[in-house]
């Protein structure tokens, strides 16, 4: 698979899988339960599948080890967004964008702490 073809495949398959999870989340109620699908492993399923096909299981194992740090950062990020929306009364677009700095800090901080880079 050439590099360009690979990225086109990633884009198309990723788009379909993410849209499917997002649509399922749209359909479910109550809203807090639907929110679980905001953290569905949609990108991970596609990326890990391609990683195993191209590089083998060892490469995918390294990715999932780092993904644990990303998931902890995501939990912290979501709590911060919730507080920004409820307490600071920010709009969703602003709150989710500002809190992205928190995700980056926690994710890369944990990564550095565990020493997997």
């Amino acid at each position, binding site marked *: 698979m050439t590099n360009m073809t*690979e*990225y086109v495949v*990633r*884009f198309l398959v*990723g*788009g379909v*899988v*993410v*849209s499917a999870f*997002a*649509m399922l989340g749209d*359909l479910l109620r*109550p*809203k*807090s*339960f639907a*929110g*679980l699908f*905001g*953290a*569905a492993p949609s*990108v*991970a*399923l596609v*990326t890990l599948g*391609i*990683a*195993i096909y191209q590089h083998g299981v*060892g490469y*995918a*194992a*390294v*990715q*999932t*080890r*780092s*993904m*644990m740090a*990303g*998931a*902890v950062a*995501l939990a912290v*990020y*979501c*709590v911060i*967004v919730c*507080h920004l*929306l*409820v*307490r600071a*009364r920010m*709009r*969703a*677009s602003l*709150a*989710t*964008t500002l809190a*992205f700095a928190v995700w980056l800090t926690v*994710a890369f901080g944990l990564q550095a702490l565990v020493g997997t*880079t």
Partner: protein
Amino acid sequence: MTPIHLSFSSLRDSRWYEFAIRFALGGAVTAFTGLASDRYGASIGGLFLAVPAIFCASATLIETHEIRRKHEAGLRGTRRGQQAAALDASGAALGALGLLAFAAAFFLLVETSVMVAFVSASLAWLSVSVTAWYAWRRTRACPERRQCN
């Protein structure tokens, strides 16, 4: 406690370009994760398997839908939109615990069997997320209890 059910009204509320945005964003994040892994290694790329890009789009769309509904009823709806997005964020925080379980299960099992790793990790995500959600609903652990029904 409101039972879990399906509601098709949100699909009727959605515009075609909102589906297109989510498709494009999902595809872009997946492509970017591959690019990050290729350029900076699997370790850095792996972090982006849990990047909140999809959640950003979902929360913004949920807020927009709530505001649009309230506008149609002659109200501003800004506060209602923020509360709806906050509920989504609460759920996503619990889903992130499930994502952690997904990564841990996949990491432990992938060298044994790829198929078992994918199935077990997906089940781990679902069971941990749903269990965490039920526990949260029972304890009402949200900072603004009245807004988390």
